[in-house]
């Protein structure tokens, strides 16, 4: 508790019911009625309801996990931990590999995402239009496809970068994707959009007056960037770093494809191993997840501590502002070239490999023979996949539904966490972050356990998938929302309240529009990643309720990489369109546009 100072402002509506059942003696009936009336306002119902829903979503899988970990052997015990970490499990060295991999990927992604976002929002770089949608492409491509494309690019013997570029030019094959650096590279690029989305929202909501003052006082451009701009967007950077770090810790796609080949085992390979065996040792799986949970919890506390002086980041104040793009001047063509270079490397190359593969019958290094066999058959097959359109529709419904529900819930809950002094708010913050470490399969099991025993018609419908996605993406929504909320000064809410606005009016007409950049960023993120969610989906979907990720998995199982590549290309096209539409609509509803060119 020592590192948990209260936020600066006690304002903004009533505190949570901290004077609830604590009971200071016998209350008179009149007081009770008054108390009840106070508790039953629309605000308390909405806020309380959101808190309960978020708590419920997070606690169901967590409870299931804890039960299996500590009580699976009959009584309460720590046996699961010794099974998981003891013996010759090499957990220590794997954890070190994991930490290194996660740290490297998060750092690379943060660096790239922040730089891209800065260039996008705050400079007059050319090609901005291309920029935005393209920045999201690595997020859209399913991890397994992205990693495979990179293998075809960076393999020491057949990698195209080696065979087509380095070998002919320099006579050597220096690139080896099967290394820790390769893993960090692929994971970092794949994650960069998470940071990019967060940082774009943060830069947009930034009052440039401080930078201008610094410039007036004679600070150079570099100094301003380093001493003023970046510190101001710290909440978003911390949120991004935390999300990406924990996500890298618990992912197995890149380490499974790239790491195993050179013997780099990461921590999640243990979880994978345990969950694949029969009978499954749920206790051990839970013990691993709890290990990750400890790291994640420390991360949440650390980020709360780093943001302790919340006033410093509140750039959205009562004063009107418009982030002015920095004129690059002579550096403009250079920046343009850098932008193009980046996209060649991270978007064009892997997508080109996918398009190339999607035209073949089986993947082969480019040759006259391979080129002769090219055809559009794989696309025809995708279009004729039974259920392709049902799956697309279901995925859309779920993606839009989960994104909307999560962002609305987390907007309210992050308000509770950041604006009130409600007891337990930090716990709530942490609780909302826990689903990120729960393995998808465990989440699936927990949900099927609960809803198979509920008479509500949820199991076997799309609703259970919606609940699963809402749970899984809660941590992301929470980070996006609270990063946006941290930038808004409470004085705006106070003025609204002074002018007679109710809490709900204030929230709907002041807070939500002001955080709309962050809200939309989170919404887009959830929409995109929910298209790929498989680990809980595969257990919970029902025949006739297929979603795209199940179809992708089926193509993958069928061994049709080339068809899968075609499907991936289609997904990129559809989602880029969707995201563009979302941002167009967002621009109409109060998003400060920055489309100066």
């Amino acid at each position, binding site marked *: *508790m020592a590192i948990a100072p209260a936020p600066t402002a006690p304002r903004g509506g009533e505190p949570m019911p901290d004077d609830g059942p604590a009971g200071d003696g016998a209350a008179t009936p009149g007081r009770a009625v008054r108390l009840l009336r106070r508790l039953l306002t629309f605000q308390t119902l909405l806020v309380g309801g959101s808190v309960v829903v978020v708590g419920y979503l997070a606690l*169901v899988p967590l409870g299931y996990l804890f039960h299996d970990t500590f009580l699976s052997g009959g009584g309460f015990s720590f046996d699961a931990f010794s099974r998981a970490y003891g013996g010759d499990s090499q957990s220590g060295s794997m954890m070190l590999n994991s930490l290194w991999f996660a740290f490297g990927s998060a750092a690379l992604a943060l660096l790239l995402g922040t730089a891209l976002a800065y260039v996008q929002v705050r400079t007059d770089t050319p090609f901005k239009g291309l920029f935005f949608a393209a920045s999201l492409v690595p997020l859209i491509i399913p991890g397994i496809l992205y990693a495979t494309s990179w293998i075809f690019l960076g393999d020491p013997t057949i990698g195209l970068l080696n065979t087509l570029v380095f070998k002919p030019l320099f006579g050597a094959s220096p690139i080896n994707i099967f290394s820790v650096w390769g893993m960090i590279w692929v994971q970092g690029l794949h994650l960069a959009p998470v940071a990019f989305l967060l940082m774009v929202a943060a830069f947009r909501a930034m009052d440039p007056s401080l930078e201008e003052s610094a410039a007036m006082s004679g600070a150079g451009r570099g100094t301003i960037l380093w001493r003023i701009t970046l510190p101001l967007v710290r909440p978003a950077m911390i949120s991004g770093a935390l999300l990406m770090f924990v996500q890298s810790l618990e992912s197995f796609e890149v380490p499974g494809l790239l790491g195993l080949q050179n013997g780099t085992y990461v921590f999640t390979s243990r979880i994978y191993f345990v969950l*694949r065996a029969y009978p499954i040792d749920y206790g051990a799986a839970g013990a691993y997840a709890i290990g990750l949970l400890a790291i994640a919890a420390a991360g949440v506390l650390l980020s709360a501590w780093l943001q302790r002086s919340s006033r410093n980041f509140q750039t959205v104040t009562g004063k009107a502002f418009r982030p002015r793009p920095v004129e690059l001047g002579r550096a403009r063509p250079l920046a343009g070239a850098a932008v193009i270079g980046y996209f060649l490397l991270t978007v064009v190359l892997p997508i080109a490999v996918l398009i190339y593969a999607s035209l073949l019958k089986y993947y082969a290094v480019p040759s006259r023979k391979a080129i002769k066999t090219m055809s559009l058959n794989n696309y025809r097959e995708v279009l004729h996949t039974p259920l392709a359109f049902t799956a697309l529709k279901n995925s859309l419904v779920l993606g839009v539904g989960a994104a909307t529900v999560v962002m609305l819930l987390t907007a309210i809950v992050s308000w509770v966490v950041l604006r009130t002094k409600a007891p337990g708010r930090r716990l709530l913050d942490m609780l909302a972050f826990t689903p990120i470490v729960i393995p998808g399969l465990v989440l*699936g099991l927990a949900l099927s*356990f609960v809803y198979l025993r*509920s008479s509500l018609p949820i199991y076997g419908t799309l609703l259970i998938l919606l609940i699963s996605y809402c749970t899984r993406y809660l941590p992301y929504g929470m980070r996006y929302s609270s990063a946006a909320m941290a930038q808004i000064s409470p004085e705006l809410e106070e003025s609204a309240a002074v002018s007679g606005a109710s809490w709900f009016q204030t929230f709907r007409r002041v807070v939500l529009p002001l955080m709309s950049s962050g809200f939309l960023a989170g919404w887009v993120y959830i929409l995109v990643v929910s298209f790929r969610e498989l680990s809980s989906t595969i257990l919970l979907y029902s025949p006739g309720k297929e979603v795209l990720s199940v179809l992708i998995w089926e193509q993958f199982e069928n061994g049709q*990489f080339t068809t899968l590549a075609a499907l991936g290309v289609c997904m990129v096209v559809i989602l880029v369109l969707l995201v563009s539409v979302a941002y167009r609509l967002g621009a109409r509803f109060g998003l400060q546009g920055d489309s100066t060119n």
Partner: protein
Amino acid sequence: MRTTRNAALAVSALVAAALVTACGGSSPGASSGTANSAYSQISALPKAQQRAKAQELAKKEGNTLSLYTSMTADVATPVAKAFEKKFDIHVSVFRANSETVLQRTSQEEQAGRPGGDAVETDFVEMAAMAQNGFLADYAGSGLDKVDPSGRFTHWTASRFNVFQPAWNTNLIKPADEPHSWEDLASPKYKGKLTVEISDSDWYENLTKYWLDHGKTQAQVDALWKAIIGNSKVSKGHTTMMQFLSAGQSPIEAMNYTYITDRAEKKGAPVTHLPADGVSKIPAFARPNGVGMIKDAKHPAAAWLFYDWLLTDGQQELVDLGLTPSTKIPGDQSLKGTTLVPFDVTGLTKEGADWDKKYDQLLRGASAGK
């Protein structure tokens, strides 16, 4: 202090809310009674009349079947279609990997809300379902053609996945082809092999085969050490085939022959047979099995599927390039291979131990490199 207590209260309120929802409804009555009666009505008749009775009962059930299977989509879809065509029974297919099929069935059985009528998946999961009492017995004429080694308590082998090495023919010339599992330990394959991270069933079968055929434990251990020393580790048999086709790796220590055959048919330069077309490498054939859920909602349809898959359905599997569990004329899937028995019993009993041992073997290898 107050903060902690209030937080605790808040948490317990949430837990209570969760519990209320969780226990909100008692599980609706399972249909085990009706299922049992349908199964016994069918099995009470002479074998020749069973199918007709099942069809009659299936009609009363509404002519629908829910199938849980780990067949890949390109197999499950035509299989379901062929069954639909034959009996005019609508099939809805839940497709997942074998572990998930087991998970889902277990969850539903424990809650008393079965969703599947028939299951078709890998032997480990079939055995687990049988052990847990999820499956009903089938005693129809479909069993007659199945070899006794393919009949198990409560379930029956429906098809086989055959274990063989596979290689890229551009990278491995006929002179360098492996002719025995032992060959994989040869120094000439250093850095050329790939093994799959979860193939402990192959490890178990080959280890026991070697021990049964005169090798000492020390010799077997040395062979494995050399094989793994030659290898890189990868994940997923279909992914591996992708990389083998592309020439990223020259040899896979083990892949399923149907995966290799399928890639070869598409024109990829891969094979599991030596240039002369006959492999002497002992081929372990791992069974996949079919079962009927004990308290199924559509037991008669489940019975029909079980019966059909072991009879007419076998031809369908052959047409799809798979290895059937009965002798079917025109089946080419085993051409050139030398079949040996697969150790179902050992793996059912000690599968987890072998998982661990294999995992240790792989990690030891990587640490030693």
